[in-house]
């Protein structure tokens, strides 16, 4: 086993659901920030522009990430008036997954693994 394989094996050592969540749903640092924000403020429902302000980021960076979170069923999008409004998915399973992810991030080892997978996914 070469060192890359060993690292990959070590980094894959996490709950399979969370591994899938990190690889396929929260696969960027902006999405990580957004998921954390919506975990802490779960009933937020607002436009991409305002969510970008809450996250302290540029809307051009945040909007595509919000759209991808909607595609991944982490978030929902509703058009209110003519404004696209984003909020956390109403699905209990997804709420639980987000809770588990944010709680797991309290552990440094989990964070290191999550960072590894996000960086690998960005290559």
């Amino acid at each position, binding site marked *: 086993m070469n060192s890359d394989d060993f690292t990959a094996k070590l980094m894959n050592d996490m709950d399979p659901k969370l591994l899938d969540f990190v690889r396929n749903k929260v696969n960027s640092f902006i999405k990580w920030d957004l998921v954390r924000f919506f975990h*802490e*403020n779960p009933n*937020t*429902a607002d436009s991409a522009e*305002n969510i970008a302000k*809450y996250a302290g980021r540029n809307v051009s960076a945040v909007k595509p990430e919000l759209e991808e979170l909607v595609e991944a069923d982490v978030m929902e999008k*509703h058009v*209110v*008036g003519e404004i696209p*409004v984003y909020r956390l998915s109403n699905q209990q399973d997804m709420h639980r997954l987000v809770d588990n992810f944010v709680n797991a991030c309290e552990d440094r080892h989990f964070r290191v693994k999550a960072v590894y997978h996000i960086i690998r996914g960005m290559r």
Partner: protein
Amino acid sequence: MERVKTGIPGLDDMLGGGYLPQSANLVEGAPGTGKSTLGMQFIYNGIVQYNEPGLIITFEEFPQQYYHDAESFGWDFKKLESQGRLKVIMTSPEVTRHDLESVGGMIETVTAEMGVRRILVDSLSQFERLTTDPMELRSLQYGFINALKREGLTSVLTRESLMLFGQQEDNENSLAFVADSYLLLRYVEIESAIRKAMLVLKLRGSDHAKDIRQFEITPRGLEVKSRFEGHEGIMSGSPRRMSDYFEEAFLKG
């Protein structure tokens, strides 16, 4: 007449028993005077004392901040949310406005599902960023307030005053006209100490206290104390002793 009690010690007496049902109640004050605390207490007491589920709509502070602030008074907002008796929603005035105008919007749905009776909107000052036209602003606020009443909600609406001390600034204050009651919170400097004063300026269709009362933010929340005695010009922020006026009138005059 039926009243919606705030449960805040001393405030219901000032309001002649409480707010009127399905009324819109403006609370105005400078930063730190206790507007949000008063609003949170109105919601919390509604849930735990009067079994009336509540909704908090915040346009500025993160819900996380409300959970934290409430906890410092011993009010477990997260638990109430998990019980389906409270929801703290962060959104913006533009979204809320369209949401309330539409049929089956988020607020309408949550109100129906939870049986919400009370709402805190913190703060309505944020509506001022939607337009610079005073007439349009008044129309927006009027529409918003009527939508809350349509949903059967008794609301506390906060509004920021930029003046730390003294009289109301001269800018547009159409909210005072469209709201059913108007409660003013002020800092007052008396003998080199800062105290807080409260005055009910308006309560549509009902009698109310006309005097200026002291209030404090205690570890249990806001408590209204006795009226200010022996001072004039409380709402100016720098009151003077009544005896000084007599001295001026009789000795210097």
